[in-house]
């Protein structure tokens, strides 16, 4: 296991919005089937990092994906109102017209009951799903075309602890079943210790990078969260 294939190399990545430097000096690499967690306070540039990785915004430095990789993306939140008239089936069909594959994908994310899928999920308005269901549907969307890499931007609100636990066991299961490499923005350091091979701490710049148990020491945490040391249960707001 010493030489796993490197699938992503990031060197000295920087992002500016007009005159504001929102991200600088990010250097890291990701090996196939690894889990990389990205942590940092609100507004630290975590979601910006994902957008740069997806090629959605201009950046400086280097982002190099292994050739031919397919990337699935689960955004932090959707920009929808509860009464948006869009059924789950319609959303999924925008990516995959084969109904069997859609149902397979939903089964993979733990929605297994055929009757439930038909009547409560596919025909349902997207905005009526519970937070946990919506997360699962978004993951199902992301894995519909069998990606090699999954970028998962964890929601900061709307999912209870029990549900959150399920999402991570689910991600772990998907990783094993589908040989996925996962990049995960997380707000919960317990999750990072438990599931991540590597962690990168970002607060506009790279504060630490390496194995969680080695690099998440009190010093870098203090630097990361600005002295906010109680990391088990701190409040989060949305960061955009």
């Amino acid at each position: 296991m010493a030489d796993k294939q490197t699938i992503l190399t990031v060197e000295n990545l920087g992002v500016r919005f007009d005159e504001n430097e929102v991200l600088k000096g990010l250097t890291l690499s990701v090996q196939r089937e690894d889990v990389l967690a990205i942590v940092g306070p609100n507004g630290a540039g975590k979601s910006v990092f994902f957008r740069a990785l997806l090629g959605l915004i201009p950046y400086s430095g280097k982002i190099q994906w292994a050739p031919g990789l397919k990337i699935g993306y689960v955004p932090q939140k959707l920009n929808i109102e509860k009464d948006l008239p869009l059924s789950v089936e319609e959303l999924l069909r925008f990516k995959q017209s084969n109904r069997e594959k859609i149902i397979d994908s939903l089964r993979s994310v733990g929605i297994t009951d055929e009757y439930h899928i038909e009547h409560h999920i596919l025909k349902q308005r997207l905005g009526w799903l519970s937070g946990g269901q919506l997360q699962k549907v978004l993951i199902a969307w992301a894995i519909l075309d069998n990606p090699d890499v999954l970028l998962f931007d964890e929601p900061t609100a709307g999912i209870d602890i029990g549900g959150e636990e399920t999402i991570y066991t689910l991600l772990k299961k998907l990783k094993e079943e589908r040989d996925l490499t996962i990049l995960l923005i997380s707000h919960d350091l317990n999750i990072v210790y438990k599931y991540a091979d590597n962690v990168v701490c970002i607060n506009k710049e790279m504060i630490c990078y390496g194995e969680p148990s080695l690099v998440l020491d009190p010093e870098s945490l203090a630097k990361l969260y600005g002295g906010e040391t109680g990391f088990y249960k701190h409040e989060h707001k949305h960061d955009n």
Partner: protein
Amino acid sequence: MITDPLFLQLLVGVLIGLGAGYLGSFMILKRMSLVGDVISHVALPGIAIALLFKVNPFFGAFGALFLAVIGIWLLEKRTEIPSETLVGIFFALSLALGILITPEPELLEALFGDITKIGPLDALITVAMTIVIFVTMMRIYRGLTLSIVSKELAQSTGVRVSKISFLFLLMVAIIVALGLKVTGTFLMGALVIVPAAAAKNIAVSLRRYTTLSGLFGAVSGLAGILIANNLHLHPGPIVVLSSGVIFLVSLLFKK
């Protein structure tokens, strides 16, 4: 029969209702209801200029709307939310300017529309433009919807959000310019929004919502013109009131 005035009116009224209803369904989802209302006002100076140069007012209105659409598109690109105040101020001013420079005899028609005055050329333009609108919408349907759900999600699947947004606004400009014949600058915003609001009350799926919205618009056009014709009333307001009745009925079936 093909040049029968009532037939022409009904044809134009139904097609414009259909197009306005269908496009309106996406306007509401894009949270641009008010934008739809105010941009219709910018058409007035365009109409005035077209009248001064003796060109078909459709082209004058469309020219003015085209410029307005570029303005809104740029605003939308710069900030996530269109700055409604700025848009509101700009369009109120252009309405004032339009009222000032529109020749008096045509002013009433420009403000409230008069479908009884349309000729075969107007009908032809309407048919052609409706086809353009629906062909374009078929092509951008997926991308437009995904960008409404999540801009990042859409972009990550290769949707060119900005281009699609521009094409969509362009289609709105076309339908508003066409609709000025039916309802005039004051009421065109209503024909874009009201059928869609009614459809949103009762539809769960997008396909059904957009179809119903187009249908409600078409029915409003049809009913409005027929009723106005029978009762010798001004068609524009009756068309809008018809869509209002549909909206009220839809409240009874609200999901």
